[in-house]
């Protein structure tokens, strides 16, 4: 099956959410006959329900397209579909490493966004030929010339021969296929050399076990071959070799430049480090492909089952999810407020939300999620350093010498009309401005910010003060000392450990007040008055009171109402089961979720 290198093109698509990447991919698949009409549906590559619903891509996907070009030759075009979100930047980088070129898809009316910028720089750094594609040119608001100019100004990429496309109507899509053939370089590789294949991704399939997505650089992969994973040294016999069309189809072998999948009796995804090099066990390559950095979770939170009886199920579900996503971590945690659960680490807030949602949906679990925390380095007076990602593990202040917190470098693109409120937001969040430049009417703002200010509703606020126009991308940018304190929330004098947060002293009062006010709205009135307080050590910095119920009784209840009204009562009691008690106060789960989310305002 090996295709001559000159007739292979491997490409990724870089695009901001909603700029039409999945629609374009659908169209390319359709035009190359990868799927029959009856198999075609929207966003074919986004297989997870959550991806389809949110219109985002989480896992990298690949599809092999067979295209007969205008020169009459048949080409194999391998499309790597990549996630667009900052949390999955690592998935992007390894997808890019498997390709020689990229399509940069930009919405012809929206223009360039921050994430696009970050990803396109990654592509350029990976040596890609980048072909700009302006999508949605059928829309009346499309301004291709302005956006072309913007691509040149903001990215510094020649957009003179950008392709004008409507993935929706199919207009210009043929030109995209042709450009892939004519403008992208073919892959390089040596079929006779020892096997070197990049482990691009892996996932768990209930029928096949772990499936590994590979890009062969040198040599050939065939079924029955004994392979070795160079980073771990483990060897396995290849069971299946195939390609995605996007259906999985068996193939006799994969040669240089080709992208496909293998299965090799591997039990868990954690054994397949993304970025590892696969080689032949008997004739190994002398050096692996350029290195990979294991991803480190940067955001942590506690996940607890609403119903404590679901603990075991949560544990099993996390284990199953981890089969498929080695980028999150979890360990058991116990909370006074929430009972038994797990402390989990994620690549970012979106990643957190996605895992939470998948647990709830795919495993039918009701969860309480605690406030996201970042990883602090607590330097103790005894000279030791404690790595802290759970506020409840905060050591006694007298034992602390100083605390360091992670910072990020954030790039924000925003129409200049909204620059003022964005600057105010960044300053309020302890940001330090690094750079401010303009491209047309668009400001490009670079700030250093403490990550803990970002995990706390920064993104929501950014969107709300810019009416959705600002976009954000960030990279971790080292640690720095900060005046950080533990803030507790007390309900009728009893601390609610799940609501404790580590916060900068300058922000404590504002955060404490906001949290108390929010809880006041969220905790329903009850028979007894409820005091909600925020405290730093023994000092109360904010207080709100939920007044006692004034009136809550059915006006009428007669013989014919008994059954119906009793059912109402039962429903109410059922609702109480979903609450947690603190100082004899019932706090609904929804209050935790909402308080912990602390969205806009």
């Amino acid at each position, binding site marked *: 099956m090996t295709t001559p290198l000159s007739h292979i093109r491997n490409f990724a698509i870089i695009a901001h959410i909603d700029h039409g990447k999945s629609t374009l991919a659908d169209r390319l698949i359709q035009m190359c006959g990868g799927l029959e009409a009856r198999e075609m549906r929207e966003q074919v590559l986004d297989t997870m329900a959550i991806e389809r619903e949110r219109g985002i891509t989480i896992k990298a996907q690949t599809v092999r397209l067979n295209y007969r070009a205008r020169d009459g030759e048949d080409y194999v075009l391998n499309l790597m579909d990549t996630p667009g979100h900052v949390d999955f930047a690592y998935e992007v980088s390894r997808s890019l490493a498997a390709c020689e070129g990229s399509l940069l898809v930009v919405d012809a009316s929206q223009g360039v966004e921050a994430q696009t910028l970050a990803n396109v720089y990654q592509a350029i750094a990976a040596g890609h030929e980048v072909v700009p594609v302006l999508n949605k040119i059928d829309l009346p608001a499309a301004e291709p010339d302005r956006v072309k100019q913007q691509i040149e100004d903001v990215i510094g990429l020649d957009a003179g021969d950008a392709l004008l496309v409507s993935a929706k109507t199919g207009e210009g899509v043929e030109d995209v296929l042709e450009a892939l053939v004519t403008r992208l370089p073919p892959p390089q590789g040596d079929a006779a050399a020892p096997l070197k294949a990049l482990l691009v991704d892996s996932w768990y399939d209930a029928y096949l076990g772990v499936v590994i997505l590979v890009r062969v650089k040198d040599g050939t992969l065939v079924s029955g071959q004994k392979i070795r994973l160079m980073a771990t040294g483990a060897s396995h016999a290849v069971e299946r070799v195939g390609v995605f069309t996007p259906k999985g189809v068996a193939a006799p072998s994969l040669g240089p430049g080709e992208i496909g999948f293998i299965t090799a009796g591997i039990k868990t995804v954690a054994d397949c480090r993304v970025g590892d090099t696969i080689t032949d066990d008997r004739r190994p390559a002398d050096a692996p492909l350029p290195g990979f950095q294991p991803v480190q979770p940067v955001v942590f939170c506690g996940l607890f089952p609403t119903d404590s009886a679901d603990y075991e199920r949560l544990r099993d579900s996390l284990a199953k999810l981890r089969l498929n996503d080695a980028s999150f971590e979890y360990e058991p945690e116990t909370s006074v407020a929430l009972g038994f659960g797990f402390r989990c680490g994620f690549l970012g807030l979106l990643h957190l939300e996605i895992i939470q949602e998948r647990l709830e949906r795919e495993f039918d679990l009701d969860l309480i999620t605690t406030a996201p925390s970042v990883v602090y380095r607590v330097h103790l007076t005894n000279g030791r350093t404690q790595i802290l990602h759970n506020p409840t593990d905060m050591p006694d202040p007298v034992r602390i010498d100083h605390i360091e917190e992670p910072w990020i470098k954030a790039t924000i693109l925003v129409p200049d009309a909204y620059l003022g409120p964005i600057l105010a937001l960044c300053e309020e969040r302890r940001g330090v401005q690094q750079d401010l430049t303009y491209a047309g009417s668009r400001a490009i703002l670079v700030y250093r910010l403490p990550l803990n200010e970002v995990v706390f509703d920064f993104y929501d606020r950014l969107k709300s003060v810019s009416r959705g126009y600002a976009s954000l991308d960030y990279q971790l940018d080292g640690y720095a000392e900060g005046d950080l304190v533990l803030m507790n929330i007390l309900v009728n004098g009893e601390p609610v450990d799940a609501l404790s947060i580590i916060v900068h002293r300058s922000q404590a009062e504002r955060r404490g007040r906001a949290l108390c006010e929010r809880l006041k709205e969220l905790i329903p009135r009850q028979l007894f008055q409820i005091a909600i307080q925020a405290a730093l050590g023994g000092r109360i910095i904010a207080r709100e009171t939920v007044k006692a*119920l*004034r*009136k809550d009784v*059915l006006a009428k209840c*007669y*013989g*014919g109402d008994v059954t119906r009204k009793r059912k109402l009562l039962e429903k109410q009691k059922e609702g109480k089961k979903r609450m947690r008690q603190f100082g004899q106060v019932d706090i609904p789960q929804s209050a935790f979720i909402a308080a912990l989310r602390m969205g806009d305002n």
Partner: protein
Amino acid sequence: MPTTALPDPEERCEAPRLEGCNTPLQNVAPPLAIYIHWPFCRSKCPYCDFNSHVRERIDAARWTRALLADLDRQARLAPGRQVVSIFFGGGTPSLMPAETVAALIERVGVHWPVARDIEITLEANPNSAEAERFAGYRAAGVNRVSLGVQALDPAALKFLGRAHNRDEALAAIRLARETFPRFSFDLIYARPGQSVAAWLDELDEALALAGEHLSLYQLTIEPGTAFATREARGEISVPDDELGAQLFEATQERLAAAGLPAYEISNHARPGAECRHNLAYWRYEDYLGIGPGAHGRVTVLGGRLATRQRRAPEAWLAAIEAADDTAGEAMPVARDTAVAEMLMMGLRLVEGVSRQRLEELAGAEIAALFGPALARLVDGGFLIVDERRLAATAAGRQCLNAVLAALVP
């Protein structure tokens, strides 16, 4: 426990056709109340979620036969009782022919001995047309009417979608007072935009017109009603928790001062003039529900039954006429359900729940039944417990939903 109203001796057994009212059984047989449902109205009120229907023509003779048949059928569930009350509700039972009412009362007397002080109530709308029938109902044996006045303010009557006006209401109250030994009327308050002062003025006028009983309901917007739609559209809104509480408290105070203290959340009476029929519900005594959509609770050997008739009038009628057992159903009530029902109903009463009856029903002492929740509610001033009873305080009644949610096991 307050004693039930004993009407004027002249009024006892006023209907000679009520057999057995002097039988010796009356002191030993457990009491039974009978509810009879007339499902028709001239028009549907926007706040009402009861089983009521508007029909162009009603075959009264057929409906009379059907209700009698249902009574005969259900009488088998509760033999050997003494009937203490009959209640004609609806719908609009004052649209019933007096002959139908008479026939049903007579048939009750065929099946059971009746108490010498039996209460026979009929709900009536204060329309002039319906008031004309009062004499007929009285002759049939009805000794108490409950008038759906709902408001004395003309604009409020219109808002509530009532078919009568203020003058008709006043005339109907006068006629009810003249015709029946006992009467009561209903008002709906906590209407959109109603202030405490305006309500107290209306209440004072009502007190001047009232007999020994008043039912005062805070407007509740029930799902599926016209008001629910209007509320969802943002056209109307009822007073909030705080104003609702102020209105409620002002009502309690004013009625107590006028000698008609609350004996239940929304019901006020001169002591002794409580509605015997409704007390049967709140005391969780036995009652039969006759007619479409009517519910009953009957103690049988080995436990309690909940009965329920089909709701749709025509379907119920057809089933009764076919005598095919699909007109209604009877299901056993689980013990914990029965306990919940006894509490839910009984704590509405100022007198509370009989501790002995509750413990018998639950098969446990209340300490074991409720655990620490009881002490907490007692300490918080929401409940009182003594040797005889468990009762909600005024504060407890005002927040009874929350008290029940905290208490009921």
